[in-house]
């Protein structure tokens, strides 16, 4: 249980490394967590081969959502857009390294959902993206 706030998460929450907005950007998407009203925006810059060169997130949320967004942004830099699209829920949970109940899972997955909706160029984010 206490694992939920393991050191890495508290650290990333308090001192995120990928927080901010990218302007200009190649991809930008934002969405809400309907359960709590939290909001996340993700911005990406790509090179000519569609490889992510820069990533940033903004918005507000709890420690889990902020830390997971930060870790996710870190992980996508250097990935191709195809690889970003292929990211799964389990990939993100591996980054976090914790077990989550159904509600906190939504917190953790919001950034992934936003990232993938942006990568796919969807009009709307969809829970299918992270299932």
């Amino acid at each position, binding site marked *: 249980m206490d694992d939920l706030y393991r050191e890495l998460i508290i650290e990333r929450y308090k001192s995120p490394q990928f927080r901010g907005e990218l302007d200009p950007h190649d991809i930008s998407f934002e969405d*809400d967590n*309907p359960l709590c009203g939290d909001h996340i925006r993700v911005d990406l810059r790509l090179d000519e081969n569609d490889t992510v060169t820069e990533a940033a997130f903004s918005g507000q949320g709890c420690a889990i959502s902020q830390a997971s967004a930060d870790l996710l942004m870190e992980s996508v830099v250097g990935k191709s857009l195809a690889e970003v699209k292929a990211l799964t829920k389990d990939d993100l949970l591996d980054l976090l390294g914790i077990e989550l*109940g159904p509600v*906190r899972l939504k917190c953790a997955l919001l950034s992934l959902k936003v990232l993938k909706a942006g990568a796919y160029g969807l009009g709307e984010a*969809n829970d299918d993206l992270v299932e």
Partner: protein
Amino acid sequence: MNIQTTALDVAKIREDFPILAREVHPGVPLVYLDSTATSQRPRQVVEAMERLIYHSNANIHRGIHVLAEEATAAYEEARGKIAKFINAPSARQVIYTRNTTESINLVAQSWGRANLKAGDVVILTEMEHHSNLVPWQILAMEKNLRLEFIPVTEDGLLDLDAYRELLTLEPKLVAFTQMSNVLGTINPAKEIIVLAHAAGAVTLVDGAQSVPHLPVDVQALNADFLAFSAHKMLGPTGIGALYGRKELLEAMPPFMGGGDMIKRVELRSFQPNSIPHKFEAGTPAITEAIGFGAAVDYLNQIGMVAVESYEQEIVAYALERLAEIPGVRVFGPEAEQKGAVVSFLLDDLHAHDISQVLDMHGIAVRAGHHCAQPLHDKFGITSTARASFYIYSAFEEVDKLVAGIYKVKEMFA
């Protein structure tokens, strides 16, 4: 009784249903032949609900304390079980409602109001339950729709030639029951749906009687909507389900507004949540959903193929025995085309009196129009007595029914 069934161990099943041991009058045991109205509930269902209440009771979705997480997980796990039971491609296509009636109203008011316009044709059947008539009548009045009805033949079947004829009207919707709650008729749902789709219509299957009694596979049927109730399939009251094709559900406007069905709310506007939540406004019937899941577990453990074949046996036996009684008139088709529902009349007696005298002998049958007045009108009667069977119904109970009917004759002789 000298016919032995092989499909189910009814005696063992009966032990799971404490109410079946009840005496309704001193010394007079209950013979419950009213499962079409509502089934009884096994201990397993009641205990699953009690476990939630005494161990994990909390409101769902938003809470991040342990109880709320357990309750949320149980609620969604039950949805998954129900989805699997009807072979839905995804649990997100199963919406919790109060009952079949609300499921159909949801389709009428959300899909119907958004997709139907003046002059559009909706095809129903003459054997529909009021729940699959009145919602469309309300919408028809509002929108000026045209309702047409597949006729019922003398022997209680749908007239499919007449249906083919009606399809030339290019209906937008064909909504029909997969099993009649009066005649017991099992309609050829797959064929009806193939024809409807070929004519460009969306289909809604009223599964209130079929889902409890037959294996129902929404993908095999290719149904667009399927409505059913937990209380008719061993589950609790207060919960039912609507299955819908994903593209349809996603395009539909919300039904009711409130908590949980939204993604974001401002004072004068809102964004709806994704399915299934878009259609589940407010605190849902959480405990009842868990009970619904437990009922599905119970049925799965028996197996719906076994359920269906046992009911085939018992209804055949019931029809055979009733045929022996002078003055009994049974409505509906032969055993092969029929679920375990037998509606009948006796001499010139009123169904109420038949039912009342049977009740004096502990035998619970239903009497009335069974929420299918137009069907009764069609047969020129106002009401019937209806005996219906389920997995816990014993062949001996058929014998008791027969003996009871003779007592009715005596009383009014």
